[in-house]
């Protein structure tokens, strides 16, 4: 603080050394409400300030008010828990064949029925959940990370790097995703769960990269970034400390929803026999297997072979979407408390 910016000394000077002097009335008397605050009740003083909540606790509060999100969260905990502890809860083993009970409908012994080799569908579905879970989370996390880095760099530095990135994502967007993925997996990595996941990552990162790039692009020019730059902050500090926190909200939402999308896409790939293949369990494969032997010995349709694996996928993705929706409500920076 230079000499010129210190408050004026003299009979009218305030007693504290704050940067701004306390307010002065018409005749120069001190009109700061010191005398009143003491006499005023605490609750009234609280009326003075807007309740200052940290952004995270406010977001948390909003999330928990969102009933669907809580239901989704609960559902995910149950389902993913089942996947994680697959070994412990499945009543049978995954490939246990029982030729005495082939293609039987749901019963107390076999909750989801049995297939053409007498394998318990409930067990297979649970193991399938585990695979879906692994694929979904892996793809979401890795593609988010990759997309974040690339998007940040492109959005921040702009120029030819940004252009290149945008053309690349445009290219990915112009072609039907499933077709490209099918081509990719057909040629590169069928069967192996992790190869398929990597291929998915290769296409999923573009989505998050665009979002992050957009935010970096718009915030790069904002005044507080310029101010930080003026006080000597380097590029990395600017990106991490100032701009990045603003992307966390959309990133979290995007990543959550990506889990659901990844699960859906992997299921489609596996159903078409270009994704994960046996012996690795996959819900898509279960449905595909069902097509090979769709009929019961009596001529009806073994609907349980198709319905249950698919239904599981639906429930998982629904729960993921509920949670994602709740997160979006909670973290959306444009929704603030209303003022008159």
């Amino acid at each position: 603080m230079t000499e010129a910016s210190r408050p004026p000394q003299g009979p009218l000077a305030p007693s504290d050394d704050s940067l701004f002097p306390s307010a002065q009335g018409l005749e120069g008397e001190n009109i700061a409400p010191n005398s009143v605050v003491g006499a005023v009740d605490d609750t009234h003083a609280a009326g003075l300030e807007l309740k200052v909540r940290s952004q995270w606790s406010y977001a948390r509060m909003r999330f928990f008010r969102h009933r669907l999100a809580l239901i989704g969260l609960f559902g995910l905990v149950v389902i993913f828990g089942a996947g994680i502890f697959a070994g412990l809860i499945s009543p049978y083993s995954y490939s246990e064949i029982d030729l005495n009970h082939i293609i039987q409908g749901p019963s107390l012994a076999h909750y989801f029925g049995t297939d053409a080799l007498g394998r318990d569908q409930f067990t297979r579905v649970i193991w399938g959940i585990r695979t879906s879970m692994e694929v979904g989370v892996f793809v979401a996390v890795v593609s988010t990370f990759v997309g974040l880095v690339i998007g940040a760099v492109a959005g921040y530095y702009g120029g030819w790097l940004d252009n290149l990135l945008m053309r690349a994502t445009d290219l990915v967007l112009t072609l039907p995703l499933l077709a490209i993925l099918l081509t990719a997996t057909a040629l590169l990595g069928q069967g192996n769960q992790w190869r398929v996941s990597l291929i998915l990552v290769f296409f999923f990162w573009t989505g998050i990269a665009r979002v992050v790039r957009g935010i970096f692009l718009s915030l790069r020019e904002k005044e507080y970034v310029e101010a930080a730059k003026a006080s000597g902050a380097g590029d990395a500090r600017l990106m991490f400390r100032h701009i990045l926190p603003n992307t966390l909200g959309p990133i979290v939402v995007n990543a959550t929803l990506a889990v659901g999308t990844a699960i859906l896409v992997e299921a489609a790939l596996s159903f078409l026999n270009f994704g994960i293949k046996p012996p690795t369990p996959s819900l898509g494969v279960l449905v595909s297997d069902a097509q090979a032997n769709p009929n019961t010995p009596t001529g009806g349709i073994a609907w349980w072979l198709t319905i249950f694996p698919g239904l599981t996928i639906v429930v998982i993705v629904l729960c993921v979407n509920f949670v994602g929706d709740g997160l979006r409500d909670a973290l959306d920076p444009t929704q603030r408390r209303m003022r008159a």
Partner: protein
Amino acid sequence: MLTYIVRRILYSIPVLFFSTFLSFIFVAYAGNPLAQLRSNPRFSQQTVDNMTHQLHLDLPVVQRYFLWLQDVFTHKLGNSLYTGQALWPQITRTMGHTAQFIIISEVLALILGVSIGIYSAIRQYSVFDYLFTSISFLGFAMPTFWLALLLQITFTDIFLHYNVRIFYTSGLNSLPGGPAWSWDRMQHLALPIATLCIISFALYSRYMRASMLDVINSDYVRTARAKGVSEWRVIMRHVFRNALIPITTVAALNFGALLGGAIVTETVFSLDGIGFFFIQSLQTLDLYAVMAYLLITAIAVVVFNLIADIAYGFLDPRIRYD
């Protein structure tokens, strides 16, 4: 407006070029379709070598790309590496079938989605709104193949139990020709159309609702009300058109997913469409056939995006003068 359209068209050409180039390199490197023939004792080494030379498989990749490109224009996409037959007639036939049911699904989904989105927004938080919000959520969570199978199973089951065929569950036609042929075709396409329509509808109705709500709370709608305009006119003249603008973008982005949905649906319902053709080509690693599919679909996407861009320019005067 015209310059805008022309510019969009010109921009698409290099995009097409690059995407096909990349795809070609990718597919070419990934595998040699003749590889399995080498190990087959019925084919002599000489025959395999001849085939290799004939199919240009011994040339560098880039050169092969340009040869392929040449083939595209002169020989109409060339011949299938697997069957040796011309690809073009296959492509046109299958594309025609796919186009039939894709276009109907999309148009239906748009009309239904937009109308229900509008009504949901006007009657926000009503039973109607909650019902259709739930349907949308379900639509987002359902794998296309599963929905297709669900419909197939349901209607096959009805047929098996009650001996009544409401809709067919496989194939394009059961009749070879005759006066009832079109109706027969519709009966066969009904379930595939329903599948794609439901999935797209969920998207459009949701976005339309959100867009409507966004616009209803905007300042210019308040201005219109302050002028004394009736609520009906406010919705139809001010809200509707502005709310429709984002939908064109959504529809354009959804087109890729629609083609993917076609692949799956055609597989489930055994339809002779380009998606089914694609799956078969992949299984046999038929490079030229795969490339043909990728090229055609890329063009389709570009064309559709162009239509969406034009629609956008029509709806929103702000971008016309860019």
